[in-house]
């Protein structure tokens, strides 16, 4: 036990305030990037779904183009994406550092991911229900807002949960470019200053955040499932 504690330097490097600040930063980054991701990703996901083959607005060319962009953004590793959009980040936020500076790259990375999950969730909606709505004289916009988004709600909530969890690991990575938050703390103290105790605690905190998100998400999905 002593040996083990020694490995972690008796947790002497831990600083409560610093940990709390970092946790708060992570949560703030998460919250803001989730807000933008959900809004933009939902729109993109709905457009992807509607323009795909045999759907309401079937537009193979539009779908193909959007799909390609989504695939490109999703295949670039997050660290590289983050660095490569720095000029863009600087343009809209004014800085590439800190909590604010991490939000644009997080959103750019998460939107295509979330949009694909939205597209998949919408695909799960029974075609018959869409057809019934058409037969009742529903317009296309009514079908999206009153049928698709309603029927896909459990799937959409699951997509939000998965995206939030993915964002946790992305926020940690944004520490690499001075993004702030738990990842930044782990990197600066745990890695660069060889403080394994800080590393351990930040990782535990990240696990806790993920665990809480997943549990809350699962509960929401269950609450809105009717099957």
């Amino acid at each position, binding site marked *: 036990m002593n040996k083990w504690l020694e490995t972690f330097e008796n947790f002497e490097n831990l600083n409560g305030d610093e940990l709390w600040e970092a946790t708060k930063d992570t949560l703030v980054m998460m919250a803001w990037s989730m807000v933008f991701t959900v809004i933009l990703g939902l729109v993109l996901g709905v457009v992807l779904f509607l323009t795909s083959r045999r759907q309401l607005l079937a537009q193979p060319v539009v779908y193909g183009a959007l799909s390609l962009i989504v695939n490109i953004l999703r295949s670039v590793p997050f660290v590289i994406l983050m660095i490569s959009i720095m000029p863009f980040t600087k343009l809209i936020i004014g800085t590439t550092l800190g909590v604010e500076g991490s939000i644009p790259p997080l959103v750019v990375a998460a939107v295509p991911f979330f949009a694909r999950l939205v597209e998949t969730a919408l695909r799960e909606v029974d075609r*018959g229900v869409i057809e*019934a*709505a058409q*037969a*009742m004289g529903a*317009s296309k916009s009514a079908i999206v807002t*009153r*049928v698709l988004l309603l*029927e896909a709600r459990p799937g959409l909530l699951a997509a939000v949960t998965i995206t939030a969890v993915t964002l946790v690991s992305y926020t940690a990575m944004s520490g690499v470019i001075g993004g702030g938050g738990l990842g930044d703390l782990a990197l600066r103290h745990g890695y660069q200053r060889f403080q394994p105790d800080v590393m351990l605690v930040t990782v535990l905190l990240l696990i806790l955040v993920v665990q809480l998100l997943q549990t809350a998400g699962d509960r929401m999905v269950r609450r809105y499932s009717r*099957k």
Partner: protein
Amino acid sequence: MSGIDLSVRKGEIFGIIGHSGAGKSTLLRCVNLLERPTEGKVSVGGVELTGLPSSGLQKQRRRIGMIFQHFNLLSMATVRDNIAFPLKLAKKPRKAVSARVDELIELVGLNGHADKYPAQLSGGQKQRVGIARALANNPDVLLCDEATSALDPQTTNSILSLLLDINRKLGITILLITHEMHVIRTICDRVAVIDRGEIVEMGDVADVFLRPAHPVTRDFVLQVADSSDSRALAGHSGGRVFRVNYVGSLTYEPILYNAVRATNVRFAILQGTVSRMKTTPYGQLVVELIGSDSEIEAIAAQLRIEGLDVEELR
């Protein structure tokens, strides 16, 4: 599909029967243009739908209710919200929606189920929700796409009698498709038989099914017959065998007895059905007549004079 020329009269229940893949579903979906015909016109209640822009079509579709084999209810909405859906689409005021929904729940017999979700209902109850939803905007026409095919026989009958009730009480024209002869016989006034995208036979239900001309129609008639003619023939003992069909009030007359009484001919009924098509009684007998040829011919002639349909099988 080709050469489809079909007109349904106001207030009737018209059935389209065909095997799966015959094109009946496509035909039905052409009526509200869920499927757009490549050529030709579709008119409902004097309005030509094929010529309308999409907003006009949306408006007209509210006059055409539709129910489905798999019900197609919103799984995330309660019975109440499902029924309210078309009313909200038509932008009815909130109070009117709620009153109309209560009325419809009563009409289809779903009292006490208003706040349940479709997953908590049986198949028959789900179809009742579908019917209530289809009737919400007081349509002139109700399209039924295999509405009872996913239901057990008992539930099928309860849904059929609900449809018949609606047709009588509200005067709604019903156009249905099915592959079950039973459905046609129970509620339809007229029927069209469809095969490989073409209508092969059409007319009053009793006419079409008592004198089936097309092989596909004969198949469907056999669906409800207890046994086939050939099996009936296996038991006969050497006389001449006739099939005798009769419809309407004749069903209850002792016509066969009267015709045979004056002769020395004896008869045996090899097979027989006496039943109803919707409200029309009918009988279909396979009879063996034993006696002299001249007397048998005289009996057959007498039956024909009385208005029966007589056909010698052997």
